[in-house]
């Protein structure tokens, strides 16, 4: 059994009469990158706010490292909200120092770490720049540093790449991977599915305040596969080949097939060979998370 850094069990939160989080449970495996997905207004932010201790759940339990969530835990979490801002008139160095000290670092410790990160991100000369002089993407780097400055074992990143150019996206992405290597558990919230697919190992999909899907990305894809196969071939397609499977898409020397109910991939391949085709490539097409996401949300 995989150890969990965070467990949510039956968490419910309502505002006024609106149920924002409806009996949500999931486990975040330790040291993984975990995708918290869902359409806008699904309740992601409410869940994150409960985890970070900004609000409290009406009912349900939350454990961090097996201990019920308490006042000490927020310091072990680094949270970068989707809607984020900085004090425009403050200088970058001063601002980072302020945020770092609020996370409980001593002045000396904070300064050392800030200098380290600024050097790493090649922005050492920004210390005396005012925040308002920076572009949105540049401010995001500052925010990322502020989020990880106290080296929290759990990191929650809400749309960390929004507004970043490809170069800076990669910079942050590499940093996320490195942190994971160092043992940090990361909750990554987004609705950009291609990023999730690339980065996350586990996901939970929230819709209408409920947990609709949870598990390892590969398992989920396996679970939702529809037995599509893509075949590159040489030769010609014989008449009657369509009796054995449904041709979804046919291009020059390449077809997409859907296997008939109960047909295994070996049987499919065998019958293709029986038609005298020379197969150059044969692989099963798993659904993208995007497709699964849209399908689940529409249901």
């Amino acid at each position, binding site marked *: 059994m995989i150890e969990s850094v965070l467990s949510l069990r039956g968490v419910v939160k309502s*505002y006024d009469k609106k149920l924002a989080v409806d009996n949500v449970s999931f486990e975040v495996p330790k040291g993984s990158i975990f995708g918290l997905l869902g359409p806008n207004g699904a309740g992601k932010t409410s869940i994150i706010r409960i985890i*970070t201790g900004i*609000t409290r759940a009406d009912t349900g339990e939350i454990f961090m490292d097996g201990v019920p969530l308490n006042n000490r835990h927020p310091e072990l979490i680094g949270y970068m*909200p989707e809607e*984020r*801002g900085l004090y425009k008139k403050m200088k970058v160095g001063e601002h980072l120092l302020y945020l770092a000290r*609020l996370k409980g670092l001593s002045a000396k410790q904070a300064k050392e770490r800030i200098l380290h990160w600024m050097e790493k991100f090649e922005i050492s000369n920004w210390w005396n720049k005012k925040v308002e002089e920076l572009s949105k993407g540049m401010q995001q780097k500052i925010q990322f540093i502020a989020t990880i400055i106290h080296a929290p074992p759990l990191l929650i990143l809400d749309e960390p790449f929004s507004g970043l150019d490809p170069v800076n996206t990669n910079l942050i992405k590499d940093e996320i991977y490195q942190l994971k290597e160092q043992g940090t558990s990361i909750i990554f919230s987004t609705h950009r599915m291609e990023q999730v697919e690339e980065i996350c190992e586990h996901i939970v999909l929230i819709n209408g305040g409920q947990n609709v899907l949870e598990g390892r990305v590969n398992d989920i894809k396996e679970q939702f596969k529809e037995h599509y196969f893509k075949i590159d071939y040489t030769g010609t397609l014989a008449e009657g080949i369509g009796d054995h499977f449904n041709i979804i898409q046919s291009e020059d020397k390449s077809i997409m097939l859907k296997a008939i109910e109960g047909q295994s991939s070996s049987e499919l391949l065998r019958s293709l060979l029986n038609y005298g085709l020379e197969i150059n490539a044969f692989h099963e097409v798993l659904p993208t998370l995007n497709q699964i996401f849209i399908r689940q949300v529409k249901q």
Partner: protein
Amino acid sequence: MNKLWLIIKREYLTRVKRRSFIIATLLTPLAFAIFFIVVGFIFQYESDEVRRIAVIDKGNVLQKSIKDETNLYFKFVDTDLETLRSSFDELDYNGILVIPPINEILSKSHTVYYYSNQSPSLDLESLIKSRIRERIRNYKIEALQLDRRQLDALATTIELDPEPIVKGNQDGSKMTGAIAAGIGGLMGMIMYIVVFIYGMMVMRSVMEEKTNRIVEVMISSVRPFQMMLGKIVGVGAVGLTQVAIWAILIPAVIFVTSLVFGFDANTQMEMAQNTPGGAAAMNPDEAEAMAIQIIHEIKNLNWWSIIPLFIFYFIGGYFMYASLFAAVGSAVGDDLGESQSLTIPITIPVVIAFYIMIVAIESPTSNLATWSSIFPLFSPIVMPARLAFSPPLWEVAVSMLVLATSSIFFVWLAGRIYRVGILMYGKKTSIKELGKWLFYRG
């Protein structure tokens, strides 16, 4: 606690270091100085123009003597009025004053005539009237052969000197009341301004934090209540700093300018006499004696209790109102129009308190003044105004207790609204909505 301190420090330092703060803090006393200089010049300017007046006094009522004034000269002439009028343009006179002979010595009213191309200015008119009144009085005294000393004794002035019942208690003088009213009014006024300026500053700052979403970043490492309290304390400290600097700089600047430009309280007072409707005639010696007494009275006030109490009411009132402003700021975000409709319920008690304060300095022991200085929404403005009148100890004690308790209560109340409001977007806020937020679970 450490985090709260960090927030206070940031709120304080960013404001105090801001150029606008430094400029406002230093320029305000300078503005006072300029105002003072300009007013001084305006008063002096009046007597700038040299005026010459020909006096025709056929009956020799004035006995050829009338006191000249700086820039105003009287000249007795023997020429008759018609000749003077026809050659008026060649002669260098501003006007001709004609004193008719006094036929009816017992008549109370006499008319003199002033011929000129311009009607006399108000100050000229009152000056001529007062000079001639004195001369005619002298003329009558002599004509009636009266005893001048007896007459002088008839003009009686009454002064009321308040004395304490218990011997040894502070002995007020005849001016204690007026001075206490002046100082009380000033203190009430300062409180009124402080509540508005710094309360609004807190509100705007909260709105800004909410709008640019820095709260989202902050809120995961500090409690909303710490953020709110830190801001209120930080801005309050800025306010105290500013008021303290002004309390030193403004009197200093006024003192220096009065030394440099040479018009002090006495000349201002004399000038006031010359203007119609000004203070009753008072000779310079009397004015000086009064100034000395005023200074003595001000020194005599019990500053050792007034200043700490003033600071207490400053802090109490500021905390109460600033927290309410913070709550409103958290609820509205960037919608200024909406903030106005929510600040009105807060500003109304402040304005009412201001008017009560004005009445309270006139009658500091009235029921209205007493109860208003206990009612917490009014007391921060009304009580400081009454402090110089040495209100009964029990009233001060009750008022302080009520204010302290209510301040804590209001800060708590505002904290409940703030923690919800600060993270709530796109929702129209009404008073009813704010009420609901109070009961939200953490």
